[in-house]
């Protein structure tokens, strides 16, 4: 996955993501595609969650999956989640759950609860950084005011790091793939460097949902695991999603 929150020169905040899933879950030799990824694409839906006939939040989802990986609470905040791999992974959390230790939260249920119930960027940030989880994760959160954008790096129990937009450091965007931002990515899976190169080339003055789509369309940010691209603009409440394909030559991940 690749998620990015960016602020333009006028202080508008945009949030976009590629959702990549299906690595090592069956390779179709004939078509050179991942089998599960191909089957997930037709399940992608946009959902408008309404209460009392009013939109509470919107999301890009897989039909049949009740948790959230990508969503917007219009005019309040935007949220995406990227997978964080760890030996202290979710299978330990599941075992603890089965054995009766149920003080942690399932990752996608937490993101859904935050989208449904949090009424501010700060409240969302607090819930995402402090709630005990069953599995490690990266939460990418964007707000509705200048400087409100961060990547929360989570272990199952702790918030390891909160990396925020910072004008004083010239940090006008935060970009997360599937590696801790303070460490080098795996050299055969470096989507971060090309994505950051394209963000820097775009410049803050020209960043918009359209140019974010360009960044997320550049291989290997776009790869054979990419199922969809979502673009969000918190101020207008826009959420757009597009199914993606990555014809050869294209990185398998």
């Amino acid at each position, binding site marked *: 996955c690749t998620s990015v929150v960016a602020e333009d020169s006028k202080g508008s905040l945009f949030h976009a993501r590629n959702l990549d899933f299906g690595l090592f879950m069956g390779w179709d030799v004939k078509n050179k595609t991942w089998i599960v990824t191909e089957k997930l694409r037709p399940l992608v839906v946009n959902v408008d969650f*309404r209460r009392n006939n009013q939109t509470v939040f919107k999301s890009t989802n897989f039909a049949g999956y009740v948790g959230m990986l990508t969503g917007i609470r219009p005019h309040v905040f935007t949220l995406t989640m990227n997978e964080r791999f760890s030996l202290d992974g979710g299978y330990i959390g599941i075992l603890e759950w089965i054995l009766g230790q149920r003080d942690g939260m399932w990752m996608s249920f937490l993101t859904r609860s935050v989208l449904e119930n949090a009424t501010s960027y700060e409240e969302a940030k607090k819930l995402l950084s402090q709630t005990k989880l069953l599995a490690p994760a990266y939460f990418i959160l964007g707000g509705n005011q200048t400087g409100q954008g961060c990547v929360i790096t989570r272990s199952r129990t702790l918030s390891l790091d909160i990396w925020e937009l910072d004008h004083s450091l010239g940090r006008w965007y935060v970009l997360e793939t599937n590696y801790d931002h303070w460490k080098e990515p795996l050299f055969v899976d470096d989507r971060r460097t090309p994505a950051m190169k394209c963000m820097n080339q775009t410049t803050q003055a020209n960043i918009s949902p359209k140019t974010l789509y360009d960044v997320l369309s550049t291989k290997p940010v776009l790869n054979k695991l990419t199922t969809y691209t979502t673009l969000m603009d918190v101020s207008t409440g826009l959420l757009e999603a597009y199914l993606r394909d990555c014809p050869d030559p294209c990185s398998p991940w």
Partner: protein
Amino acid sequence: SAHLAPPFTEECRTGMYPPKGPTFKGAVTWYTVDLNLPPSKRWAAVISDKKAELVAMIQVIRDLANAFVPSGKLIDIVDKDLPLLVDTLPYPFNEEIRGIAAVSGVPLGEVVLFNIFYEVFTV
């Protein structure tokens, strides 16, 4: 073909929006989920439309599981034991999952597995 080795990297794209061409596979359909409805009813419209696609995806997971454990015991465990897990999941997610299984006809344990995929695959 060394330059094609992962990660194949190209120059930054421009002018890709509005989406078109070979990297664009289609628009995404909108649905409404009414949070005033009982949880078991909320996803009925989505699942009615996407039932065939959901069944096809679950079948792929069954095939993968059976490839790893050819005796079929892994899927037996999913079908027999994972439904017990749904009782322990927090409300309203447990009821929504039950509703999805009922509308789709997919065994409850397999819908549960789909919904806890993230926790299973973070290693």
